[in-house]
């Protein structure tokens, strides 16, 4: 029993059209080789006979040469071919390069190069969870491998340059229809070439990684690429996310902590408080440690100011505990046909009383329209409320704003980056 083992692979040939030397670097799934000297497309499955010729090809700038070797994702690849694609839209021309790489262990991958950006793609058998057609609108989404992809572009392009080995027999100006969908750093592409539909999975590769892998000096990328991930230093990102979390906790605490308390006293004072001191009815302090809020409301205050001095006294009106001077002002009018106002007709002050018991408020006030108090100034209504158990959240609110300011730059940068990703690209690719 014996059999012939697989034939030894050819490593180089002479172009059957021009005699130029052609290295063979790909595997047995390579279907054609385009001679770099004469543009002849040779059939690798039929004694390298000339299938057709790519005439007058203008070689574009190639940051990577055929034959280069480099390790990507831990796998050694060799560059075996390159095509330039061209898309014309509204008078603009967009061009990009697609390098075909081969590894005997992992097969074929594409390395797409556009505006300095690199994306590594390889054919997969993963189909989208929902049907996808080639005319899907931008930003519509579908799932592949449990990741949600958004359509970035549905369009068509034509081959404008070919060199080296390919896994099909390319033709001049051959057109492809495609859908590029992104879930940074991943890309999912559906490509229709002839009657065949292919699905590819891609990942954005930083240009430094490509430069290091293939020992080249490709240019620094410009703009934001469709599947380029937003990258920030881990420290900056962690700090910003931490600050934003702290801001959320602070605002939650603010709403949780702050309270208007319960009403324990309400009294309306007449205009007498502006003539002589008045004493209120009693109010009770049950829990001395709690914060009390005194809200003064003057509904008839308009283009005036008023000043009150509240004194907390015991019910016998013999002992004064403390004074609470309180000022209000409210002005309004029209200037240049526009209404304006400033100040407020209400104010709240806070106090604590060190002991339990019944207390009263002694009030006297003054007011006016200018700088000096008016002798006969009066307001018909001054409403005073005292609330028990008031909790202020001012500190937590301060923390909220502080954390927001510290955390916001990262998110603003990220949003700007995303806006650039999805902005229409008006720049011509030259």
């Amino acid at each position, binding site marked *: 029993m014996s059999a012939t083992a*697989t034939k030894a692979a050819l490593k180089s040939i002479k172009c059957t059209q021009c005699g130029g030397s052609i290295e063979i670097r790909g595997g*047995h799934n390579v279907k054609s080789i385009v001679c770099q000297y004469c543009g002849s497309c040779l059939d690798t499955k039929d004694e390298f006979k000339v299938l057709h010729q790519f005439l007058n090809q203008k070689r574009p700038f190639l940051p990577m040469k055929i034959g280069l070797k480099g390790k990507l994702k831990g796998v050694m690849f060799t560059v075996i071919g390159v095509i330039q694609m061209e898309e014309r839209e509204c008078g603009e021309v967009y061009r990009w390069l697609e390098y075909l790489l081969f590894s005997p*262990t992992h097969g074929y991958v594409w390395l797409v190069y556009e505006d300095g950006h690199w994306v590594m793609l390889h054919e997969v*058998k993963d189909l989208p969870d929902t049907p996808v057609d080639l005319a899907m609108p931008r930003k519509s989404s579908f799932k592949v491998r449990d990741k949600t992809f958004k359509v970035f572009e549905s369009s068509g392009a034509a081959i404008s340059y070919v060199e080296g080995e390919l896994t099909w027999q390319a033709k001049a100006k051959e057109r492809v229809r495609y859908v590029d969908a992104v879930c940074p750093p991943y890309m999912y592409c559906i490509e229709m070439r002839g009657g065949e539909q292919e699905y590819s999975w891609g990942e954005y590769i930083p240009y430094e990684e490509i430069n290091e892998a293939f020992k080249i000096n490709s240019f620094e990328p410009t703009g934001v690429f469709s599947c380029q991930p937003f990258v920030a230093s881990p420290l900056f990102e962690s700090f910003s996310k931490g600050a934003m979390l702290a801001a959320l906790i602070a605002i939650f605490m603010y709403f949780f902590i702050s309270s208007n308390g319960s009403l324990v006293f309400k009294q309306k004072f007449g205009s007498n408080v502006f003539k002589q001191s008045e004493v209120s009815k009693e109010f009770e302090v049950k829990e001395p440690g709690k914060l009390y809020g005194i809200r003064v409301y003057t509904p008839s205050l308009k283009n005036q100011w008023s000043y009150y001095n509240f004194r907390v006294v015991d019910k016998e009106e013999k002992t004064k505990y403390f004074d609470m001077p309180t000022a209000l002002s409210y002005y309004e009018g029209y200037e240049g046909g526009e209404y304006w106002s400033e100040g407020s007709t209400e104010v709240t002050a806070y106090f604590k009383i060190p002991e339990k018991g019944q207390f009263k408020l002694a009030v006297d006030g003054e007011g006016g329209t200018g700088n000096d108090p008016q002798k006969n100034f009066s307001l018909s209504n001054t409403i005073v409320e005292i609330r028990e158990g008031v909790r202020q959240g001012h500190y937590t609110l301060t923390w909220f704003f502080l954390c927001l300011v510290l955390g916001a730059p990262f998110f603003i940068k990220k949003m700007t980056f995303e806006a650039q990703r999805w902005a229409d690209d008006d720049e011509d690719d030259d």
Partner: protein
Amino acid sequence: MAISLTCPSCGNIINQVTRSPQMVVCPACNSTHLLTNGKMEDVGKSAILTDVPSIFEMYKTYKYTDWKFTPVGRVRYDYGDGYWDEWFVRSDNGKETWVSVDEGDIAIEHLVQKQLSLPTFDEIKVGGALMINRIRMTVVEKNTATMVGAQGEVPFKIVPNETYNYIDLLGPKRTAFTIEYQDGGIDCYKGIWVDPFEIVEV
């Protein structure tokens, strides 16, 4: 547990690791042996498979998601434009299955049905659809394969230069089917297509 066998041709000790291989190829002298009741009968030389780099190597352990397996045998087929390897692999739990590798195209498959009611090979068209076990599958390849040779342990008798027709099908969620038309019968292998970047050496 491995069973030690002695190669009748060269005396080399071969460790049999699969449960019931029919054929064992001696790694030392490349003699092919038919294994019957624990005895090896020399049936000739197998073709030496050209040692081209592959994603797998014999007796190394690999992992795909949480499934670990070790290649213990290999059969190579030529399909005209090239060749592919069918790796006979043993799982951690002792189950044996096939992993086919054609450059970057990898499928894990096992025999599911010996007989299926399907159109004849000539009636099949690439790009057409077939319903198999109520799964709509697309024919992605239709070809004829020739056995080149084997290595290690394989569960059937290998006959170099023997040919058979086959079709490869692709379905939802990477479902793979291979239908082999051989000796008037149809063998159906079911499995999944695997991304080579998802396979790691353990």
